[in-house]
C-alpha cells in the first residue's frame, strides 16, 4: 500500500540553511498491516509523518514514496487526504471559531467531493458522530465547541481519533498519539484505533515507547535512527528496545 524507497528529505527553515533529516528511508507497509516506527528524539520520526502528508517547509531531495502505486509526493496535502491518508498530529492545532462538527463535516464533504462521492446527509452525519463520540467516551457537548480550543492534551488526542473514525481513512499515521494520555485514556484511544483495523487499511504508528504497542499490536516494528531505518523485526523488537534501550539496538545494527 505504502512504499518508501531511499527517501531523503530536508527541513527548510525560513531563516536558515536546509538540514537533511531523512537520509534514505526504505519501508513497505502492505495493505492490512500495522507498522510501528520507533526511535530516539531527533531521529526523524515526525519529519517522516510530515513528508508523507505534504507539509510545507520540507524538501524531498531524493527517493520516492508511492501510495497504491501512485506518486504521493507530487500531491497537495488535501489530495493525499482524499486518497485516504490521515495524520493524527502529535500536537493537534486549535482552530478558533470553528466548532468540531462543522469542521469535520466540511472535511468529510471536501473528501467526498474530491473522490466524486455524494455529500453525507445531515442525519447520517449526526448519527455517525454520536456513535463515534460514544465509542471514545467524548461528551457530545464538546463537539459543539471550537476545535481543540481550551481542550486538554488528552482531549485533543481523543478528538484526533474521533476525526479518524469519522473520516474513515485507509492509511493512518499516528504521531506520538500516546503522549499526554493517562492509562485509561490510552485504552479508549487504542480501542478507537483498533476499531478501524481491517484488511483494507494500514497504519504507521510512530512512538517513543513500547507502551502504546501493548494496545495497538503491530505486525512489524522498525527502528529509525539518524534518518535511516537501522533495524526491522516483529513485535518482539519493541520489547527488546524497551529492555535494552535504543543505544544497544542501534549499535548492534551499525
Amino acid at each position: 500500500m505504502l512504499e518508501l524507497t531511499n527517501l531523503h528529505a530536508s527541513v527548510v527553515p525560513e531563516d536558515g540553511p536546509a538540514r537533511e533529516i531523512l537520509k534514505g528511508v526504505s519501508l513497505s507497509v502492505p495493505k492490512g498491516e500495522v507498522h510501528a516506527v520507533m526511535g530516539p528524539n531527533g531521529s526523524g520520526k515526525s519529519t517522516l509523518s510530515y513528508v508523507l502528508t505534504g507539509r510545507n517547509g520540507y524538501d524531498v531531495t531524493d527517493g520516492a514514496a508511492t501510495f497504491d502505486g501512485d506518486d504521493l509526493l507530487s500531491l497537495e496535502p488535501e489530495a493525499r487526504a482524499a486518497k485516504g491518508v490521515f495524520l493524527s498530529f502529535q500536537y493537534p492545532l486549535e482552530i478558533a471559531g470553528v466548532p468540531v462538527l462543522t469542521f469535520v463535516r466540511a472535511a468529510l464533504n471536501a473528501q467526498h467531493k474530491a473522490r466524486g462521492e455524494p455529500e453525507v446527509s445531515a442525519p447520517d452525519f449526526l448519527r455517525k458522530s454520536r456513535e463515534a463520540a460514544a465509542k471514545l467516551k467524548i461528551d457530545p457537548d464538546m463537539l459543539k465547541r471550537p476545535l481543540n480550543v481550551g481542550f486538554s492534551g488528552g482531549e485533543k488526542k481523543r478528538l484526533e481519533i474521533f476525526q479518524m473514525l469519522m473520516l474513515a481513512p485507509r492509511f493512518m499515521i499516528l504521531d506520538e498519539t500516546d503522549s499526554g494520555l493517562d492509562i485509561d485514556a490510552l485504552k479508549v484511544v487504542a480501542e478507537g484505533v483498533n476499531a478501524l483495523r481491517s484488511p483494507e487499511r494500514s497504519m504507521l504508528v510512530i512512538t517513543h515507547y513500547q507502551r502504546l504497542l501493548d494496545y495497538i499490536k503491530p505486525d512489524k516494528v522498525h527502528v529509525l535512527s539518524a534518518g535511516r531505518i537501522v533495524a526491522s523485526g516483529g513485535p518482539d523488537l519493541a520489547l527488546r528496545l524497551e529492555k535494552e534501550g535504543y543505544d544497544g539496538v542501534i549499535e548492534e545494527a551499525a
Partner: protein
Amino acid sequence: MASSRASLHPPRSAEEQALIERYAHLPADASRRAAIEAFEKTGLPHRRVEGWRWSDVRAAVRGLECKTVAEPPDPFHSQAEGSLYFYDDGLPSRGRIAAGVKIDELAIGAGSGDVAAMPLAALTAALASGPAVTSLDISSDTVEPIRLHFDSRCDGQFRRVEITLRKGVTARVLESHVAGAGFSSVLVDYRLEADATLHRVVYQAGADTAVQAANARVWLGHGARLVQTALGFGAKLARIETRVTHGAGASEAILNGAYLAGKGRHVDFTSHVGHDMPGCVTRQIVKGAARAGGRGVFQGKFLVARDAQKTDANMEHHALLLEDGAEVNAKPELEIYADDVQCAHGNTAGAIDEDALFYIRQRGVPEREARAMLTESFINEAFGAADPAIADILTAEARQWLLAPQ
C-alpha cells in the same frame, strides 16, 4: 507667512472647485453656508492633514470615471420592511415605515454642529440635497429594523440624516452604503436620549471607481447604549468614520467592525470616542484582512476627559495580511486626563497561521477553503455583538468574498 499658508492650503483642485459650484446651485441657508465655509477652509482632506495620512481623498477623487457597473449589492434586502432608499438624486423612496417612527424631510438644515474635525461631514452638510436633512424621530420600540440604503451609481450623492431615539427606546438601524462610481458622502447624526438603545449596522461596498464616506456622529444620553457592527469592503477609497460622545454618563458603546480589502480597494475605519462624563464603558473590536493590492486603515481614538472617572474602555484591532503586497495601517490612540480609569488597547497584524492551515488541509479541505475558514473565524469575532440574523448575513457576505476567485 504667505508661503506657509500656501503649503497648508494648496490651490483648490478642479474637483474641489466643482464641489463648491455644486453648493452654489443649492438653496441657500445659514446651516449650509456655515458648513461650506468650514469645508472651504480645509478643502478635501489629503495625506498631510492629521487623521488622513493614509486616506488621501483629494487624490482619490481625481479622474473618477462614471462607467456602467454591475448592480451594487443589497445584503439586507430581505431584512427590513421599513426602508428609505437613497439614489443619486431626488427624494428617498420609502418602504413601509414602522409605527412610532416619524419622518420629516427638511428643506433647511438645522445647523451641523462642530464639523471642524470632520471635513467630509462639513462637505456633506453643505451639499446634502433632496432633502437637506431627512429626520427620523423614534418614539417607541421598533421590532423591524429601519433600513437606510445609499446607492450611488455615477454622479455620487451627499445625504444627511438625523435620527433621534427618545427616552428608553430600542431601535435597530441598518445602513448600507454601496457605490458603483462617483464620490458620495453620507452624514448620519444619532441622538440617544436617556436609556435608549441603538443597534446600528453599517455595510459598505464600492467599486474601484467610487469614493465613499459614511460619516456618523452618535451622542449618548445618560444610560444609553450603542451596539454598532460594521462590515466594509472598501472602494477606490472608502472611509467609515464614527464619532461617539458619551455625553451624560453611565452610557455604553460597542464599536465593532470588520474590513476586507481586496485588490484595488482601500477601506478606512476611523473612530473617535469622547468620554466626557463618568462611568462610561466602551468596547471596540475591529478585525481586518487585506489581499495583495488592498489596503486597510484603522484609526481609533479614545479620549477620556478629566471628569470622566471610572471610564472602562478597551480597543482591539487585529489584521491578517492574506498575501504579499497587502497593506494595513493602524493607529490606536488613548488620550486620558482622568486618573481613575481602566483603558487598554491591543493591536496586531500578521499572516495566516501556516500550521493551522496545514492541519485543515491534512483533513482534506482544499487550500482556498482552508484559508477562507481560518479568515472567517478570525473575522467573525467582530460580528459577535450583532443580532444573530444580521451576523449570519455579514458572515455570508464575508465568506463570499473569501471564496471568490482572485
